[in-house]
Every structure is written in C-alpha cells, then in structure tokens.
C-alpha cells in the first residue's frame, strides 16, 4: 500500500513541474489506451469493409486518414489496431512485474546460496534471446495475443529483477535498514515499503513502460512479418504498415509507422517523469 502511495506521490510531484515532452507523452499513451478501449464501440465492420470504389484515397471528411488499396478506412483501422498491443502489452508488464520484482528482491536481500540460485535462474532466462523465447512459447502453445504477452512478460522479467536486485543489494546494509529493523519493522514491510517501493519504484515504473514500448515493437514486427502476429483482415499497426508497402507514399503507410514511432517514443518520455525527487 505504501509503495503505491509513494509511487503516486512521485508521479504527482513530477506532474506539478512537468516537462512538456512528458505531458505530451502521457497524452499520447492515454489516447492510445482510449482508442483501444473505445474503438470497438464504433461498429466499424472489420472484414466487411472492403470498398474498391474508394481505394487509395487521400484524407477526406469521410476518411480522415484516407483509405488503403482495398478502400478500407485507415483511421478506423489504426484505432482498432491499437487493441493488438494495449491489452497484451499490459498483461506482459504485469507478468514481468510479478516475476521480476519478487525474484529481484530475494536475490538482492537474501545473499548467499539463495541469491546465487535466483541469479542463475534470472541469468538463464536472460540468456535466451527474446524473440527465440517467444517463438518457443508460440510453437508449443500456439500463436495468439496471450502467448505473446506471456512470452514478452517472461522475457522482460530479468531486466526488472536485475534492477531491483542491484538496488536492494546496495541498500541492504545501509544504516537506515538497520535502524528500521531496530525499530521493529518486519522484513516484508521493509522490503515492500522502503526498498522496493520508495527506493526502486521510479526505476520499476520506467522499466515497465520500457517493457510496454518493447511489446509495441514486438507485436508490430510479428504482424509485419506475418504468421505469429495479428492476421488479416484484423488490423494491427504492423500488418497495416506492410499492406500498402510498395504502392507509393501514402497515409496508409505513413500513419501506422508514425503511430508506432510516437507510441514507443511516448513510453520512453513518460518514463522520464519517474525521476527520483529526493535528489533535488
């Protein structure tokens, strides 16, 4: 609970003196999440939207971002395409956090054989290339958004565990830890409230946003390549990018590319809001 409070306080403090890029980044991420949540309510007929009469048009009042070469509305498909990564990306972040934070905390605080074992485990996962790990999971369990999310979550856990573990190891013998224990603060409260929450909270927030950004790229890449990503006619920013590829410069290619770039950039910039305020 206190970890949440501290993180919320850090965010509130950061927003009081916001760097303008951070504010824009948060607005972009909010827009993407809202698009994913609300776009299905628009009733856009996915799969029944082919309209050769209005193929490859520029922007107009009817089609804000124009159409692709099958006459499908780019703006609607862009909004709907965000669903390919918003939900699964959030799940990936949750899995990375659920695995990485406790393992890192144990590795950092326990020391000795326990820490060695946990670090070996973390290192083993980290040594498998991310894409190979995800391909392996998709091969065994089939391709789908959940499998992608689980794969990306597991692949993202070592970075979190490493950051949390290193930080806690450095703080383990700090005087304030000794003082807290002397006051009778129990070990779980010490780990959660002080070491993970206050000391590592901003780092965790930054890494989770980076994990999300990484998932956007991963999902777009797989959909671009085809096979493991979102299959046509369902839209994803990756398969939209490839759909009109080689048919000249048009919004139907530029819009998804720009959307990917802006969203991934926004995760990095939003992460910078989580600076450590106590350093002034």
């Amino acid at each position: 609970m206190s970890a949440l409070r501290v993180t919320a306080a850090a965010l509130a403090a950061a927003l009081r003196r916001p760097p303008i890029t951070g504010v824009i980044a948060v607005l972009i991420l909010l827009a993407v999440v809202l698009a994913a949540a609300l776009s299905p309510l628009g009733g856009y007929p996915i799969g029944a939207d082919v309209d050769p009469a209005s193929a490859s048009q520029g922007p107009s009042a009817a089609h804000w971002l124009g159409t692709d070469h099958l006459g499908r509305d780019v703006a609607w498909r862009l909004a709907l395409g965000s669903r390919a990564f918003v939900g699964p990306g959030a799940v990936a972040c949750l899995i990375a956090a659920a695995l990485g934070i406790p393992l890192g905390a144990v590795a950092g605080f326990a020391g000795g054989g326990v820490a060695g074992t946990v670090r070996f485990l973390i290192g083993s996962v980290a040594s498998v290339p991310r894409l190979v790990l995800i391909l392996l999971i998709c091969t065994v369990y089939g391709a789908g958004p959940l499998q992608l999310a689980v794969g990306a979550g597991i692949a993202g856990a070592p970075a979190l565990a490493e950051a949390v573990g290193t930080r806690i190891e450095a703080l383990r013998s700090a005087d304030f830890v000794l003082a807290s224990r002397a006051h009778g603060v129990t070990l779980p409260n010490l780990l959660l409230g002080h070491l993970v929450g206050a000391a590592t909270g901003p780092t965790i927030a930054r890494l989770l946003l980076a994990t999300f950004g990484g998932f956007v790229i991963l999902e777009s890449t797989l959909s671009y390549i085809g096979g493991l990503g979102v299959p046509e006619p369902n839209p994803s920013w990756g398969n939209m990018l490839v759909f009109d590829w080689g048919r000249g410069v048009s919004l139907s290619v530029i819009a998804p590319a720009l959307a990917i770039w802006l969203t991934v950039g926004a995760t990095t910039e939003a992460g910078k809001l989580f600076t450590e305020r106590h350093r002034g």
Partner: protein
Amino acid sequence: MAELTLSGLTIQSDGVTLVDQVGLTVRPGEIVALIGASGSGKTLTCRALLGLVDLDPGVVSANLHVADADHEWTPYAGLSGAGRRARDRAFRSLRGRILGYLPQGAPAALDPVVRVGTQLQRTAELGQGGMVTSWLERAGFDAEQARALPQLWPHELSGGMAQRVVIAQALARGSRILVADEPTTGLDAPLQRRLLESLRALADDGLAVLIVTHDLRMASPVADRMIVLDGGRTAEVWSGVPEVAESPAGARLLSAIREVPW
C-alpha cells in the same frame, strides 16, 4: 520501565575474536556510557543487544537478560538450531517495543527516498501513535520547525537536525531502553549539550539509556556509570571522572583517542 543485563558477550568473525566476554547493565532512569577507542567493539556490542550482528559465526556466547514489568526475555539462551528460532522471535518482540537504537550517523539512519514526516508517521504507527509534529517538539524542535520538517527529504537536514529526528523516531516508537551509538558525532558543543540534556530528560522519565562513544569528555558529565571497552574486553567500570586518568585502561584510552585529560 525496563532493564537490561548483559554478560559474557563474545563475538567472533572468521576465527577472530572481536568482542571478548563483555558485560554491562542498564537500569531505568540511568545513563550508562560504553566508552572505547575506534575498533574496540562498541558498535558490535550495541548490535548484539538488538540481535543484529550479521557476522559468521557472530555471537558465540552471551547471556542477555531483558525485563520489563510484565515480561522477561533471554534471547541468547539457545544459540543454535531451535534456539536460533526462539532467539529471532525474542528479538522480534524486543526490537522497537523495548529496545530502541539510534545508529551511528543519523543522516544515514533515515531512508533517503522517503520524506521525514512519512518516516516518522510510520514509526509512530508501530508504537505510540500521535502527531508527528508533537514528537518533533518532544525531540527539541520549536513549533515552527516541527511544522516545516515533515515535508523535507532527509538530505535536506543538517547533522544535528537528523540526529533529533532520529530521537523523535525513537520517542514515537516508545522504546523503553535506548541504545545510542555515537549520538554526538558531528555536532557542535551547544548541540551536543542539548542532545545530552534531552537524553537526560528521557532517563529521568524512566527510560534506560546506553550511550556508546569514544568521547570520554562528552560522556563523563552526563553518565551515571562508564564502562570502558579495551581491546574488545570490558576493562573497568567507573562511577566518576577522577579515577579515569589514573587507571591503566583509562590512560590507554586517553592516549588512543588523543584526548587531553582535564
């Protein structure tokens, strides 16, 4: 009201004996000074009182008896196996509630990434409850400072302020026996005096206070008894100042810390 008796404390690390058969007693209303040169085992002795020695094998023998009106604890009664779990349990119920600790270097004793008020609040919630500002006033801040301090980060405090914040924490926690490790280090003379006066006031309220220091001159006016650690052993126990310079251990201590005898 609680009192503490320690005897036969021996601490080893990798075959080296760091503390050898040390003993001391602190009673309610009393300030006892544990004096020794750097490296004489003072801090280790403090940590052993709280069960916070992280060495291998650490405490190899000790007879620690802590008692308040209702309970008695002998945490070092068993040092291995099932005794170890009993010891951890005993120390868990002692730490904070009965035994308070003011670590060496107060600024580092505060969590650097949590505001002063939040830390004090959390400590108070473990113990006495009450308002953060009133605990700060009890620790010697005036009303205006007590209102401003809770919003500050620990790095914004001076050494003396941090020391008093740490004392406020111990008060808010409501510990009955205070172990203060070098509480006056880095403070100027007036601040040292104020700090010692507040420790004296706490002792007069019935707390038992153990001050650990290398500074004989600081400790002697305020301490009811002085215990000298000499090479990891308890050398002598003095009740007054004049005996100090005449005894061999006192002379060694004085030369070791380059103190000018008065």
